């Protein structure tokens, strides 16, 4: 499903090069619920952003479903570029929910489907179905700021799932939630992974989240922490 080869990312702080990833190679199978863990500044979010085409690598390759997505860029034809690939194949859940405040819960979830060109009624109906799955069927007409943090994160998950993407990327989705809400979110991810067979790649730094993952990739100083993967990576 995902094949990563010698992935590097170097940020420039003025004239100083700061390596965030220093040559990561890994593979993730279809239907896996994979956790990416490591200390702060280890490069786990950078890796997720590169896998999710939100950022471009300095070097290395990423293959998703056989497509070399690291070679995609936005100056390509509209149906071949990174934006199109993200829309058609990937879903995202962000730490701070990242919902559009001008849109209602239903509209937030429906917008990726609308953008795909599906009939509007179908988009709303798909959005309503996913919202029901995440337990928010009574909140569809609310604006997002009228919801609690846990509810907003569930909306974010519903939005990530509405187009039934190949892979869902989640960047510390429980970071702003209490334990109870975090558990709800993780169980939701687990259920989606089990029931729909969707590949989920999630960044976390909470040790107790490990029990939910099928496999864990540890990162340290921009490299895979092989020793820890062998010990704790399942």
């Amino acid at each position, binding site marked *: 499903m995902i094949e990563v080869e010698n992935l590097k990312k170097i940020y420039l702080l003025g004239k100083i090069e700061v390596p965030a990833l220093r040559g990561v190679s890994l593979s993730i199978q279809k239907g896996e619920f994979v956790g990416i863990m490591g200390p702060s500044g280890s490069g786990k979010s950078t890796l997720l*952003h590169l896998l999710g085409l*939100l*950022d471009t690598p300095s070097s290395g390759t990423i293959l998703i479903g056989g497509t070399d997505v690291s070679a995609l860029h936005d100056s390509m034809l*509209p*149906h071949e570029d990174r*934006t*199109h690939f*993200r*829309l*058609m194949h990937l879903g*995202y859940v*962000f730490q701070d929910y*990242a*919902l*559009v*405040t*001008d*849109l209602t819960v239903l*509209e937030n979830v429906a*917008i*990726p489907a*609308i*953008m795909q*060109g599906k009939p509007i009624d179908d988009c709303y109906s798909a959005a309503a179905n996913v919202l029901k799955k995440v337990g928010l069927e009574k909140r569809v007409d609310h*604006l997002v700021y009228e919801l609690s943090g846990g509810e907003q994160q569930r909306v974010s998950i519903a*939005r990530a799932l509405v187009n039934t993407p190949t892979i869902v990327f989640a960047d510390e989705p429980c970071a702003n939630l209490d334990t109870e809400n975090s558990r709800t979110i993780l169980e939701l991810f687990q259920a989606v992974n089990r029931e729909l067979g969707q590949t989920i790649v999630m960044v976390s730094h909470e040790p107790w989240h490990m029990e939910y993952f099928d496999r864990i990739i540890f990162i340290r100083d921009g490299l895979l922490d092989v020793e820890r993967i062998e010990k704790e990576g399942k």
Partner: protein
Amino acid sequence: MKSRGYFVSLYLAARAIRRGNRGTLVLTILIIALVVVLMNFLSMIIGGVVYAYNQQMITYQYGDLTIEPKDKKTVIENADSLTHRLEQVPGVTGVSSRFSTGVTITNPKNGKFLSQSLTAFDPDDEKTVTQYNRKLVDGDFLSKGDTGQILIGVLIAGNTDEADDKVPSLGGVKVGDMVDVAYGNGVVKTYRVKGIFETEGVLIDSSAFISRKEMDSVMGTEGEATAVLVKGTSSDNAAELKNTLLEYGVQEPIKTWSEKGKGILGDAINSFQLLNRIMTVVSLVVASVVVFIITFINIINRRKQIGILKAIGIRPQIIVGSYLLQVMFLCSCGAAVGVLMLYGISGILTLNPIKFPMGYIQPIIDYSGLAFSMVCLYVVSMISGYIPAWQVAEEEILDAMRG
């Protein structure tokens, strides 16, 4: 996908407008409306000035056409026969032969005097071309056989207290008073003021008239005219009427009212229009800066949202499109409110006209100018909205999402 892109732009724009800050929305619309007013107000007044001036020229000074003496001649020698011929031309509804000469009018009561032009006409003919007979504030209009009588404008009559006069006057002459008129040929005659007229136009209300019979008896001008005024069925068709008269063999120079009037007010109107153009440019700069600032602040506040939209697969062009649609909406509402405000101002100024030297002015909206200002407003607003929207929409997703 492209048409869906337009739809998504509209979808996002409609919701941003509906759920955005109402106060900002209303304020922005109001500012754009005021810009529309600012761009069109002066031209509305200029339009009123030009219209009033044109009407006064047609109604009191020149008729639709003025026939003048040939080159190097001071008078039209066969004026009676010309007048008779003109009356037969289809489309001509009135003809008045005038003779003007320089005189000095003195008020013997106070010794005040004015050197100016005195015009003679046949009162019956004059009624078919001009409307002095309808503008009398005191006394009567001249009659065909009147001798020893003079018709004067209210500004010549003046006031006893000089401070009340707008222009030099005879110091408070009333109907029935006697004034002395000294002609260029040395003749001095005393005339009884038969009537005083007021048209509100400074130039016109400074005129004085006697009957043709009186002028002929003093100056020996039988059959001569310094000008022949012609009235047609419509002043708008003055040029056509001029061509008709030329076809009928009129040899003397013929000028339409607009050709006659160009010189006097032309420079003033050109200056007004220059001011208007400057105001329009300033207003457009104000509008573009306002729209730029509003869009910029709006977009800076929504950088994160733009990043989110891009992250979930919405193209920058669609995001920019949604902001341009918002700008278009603001412009359309602002323009509509602006036009309503212009109509309101026009209505108020029609009920309470502004006084100008040519009389009371009723504003006239210049629709072609209004349309042009709208197009300019839309263009500058779209450019001002596009630049910040494109700048942020082209940012890296993660940079935008950090806000």
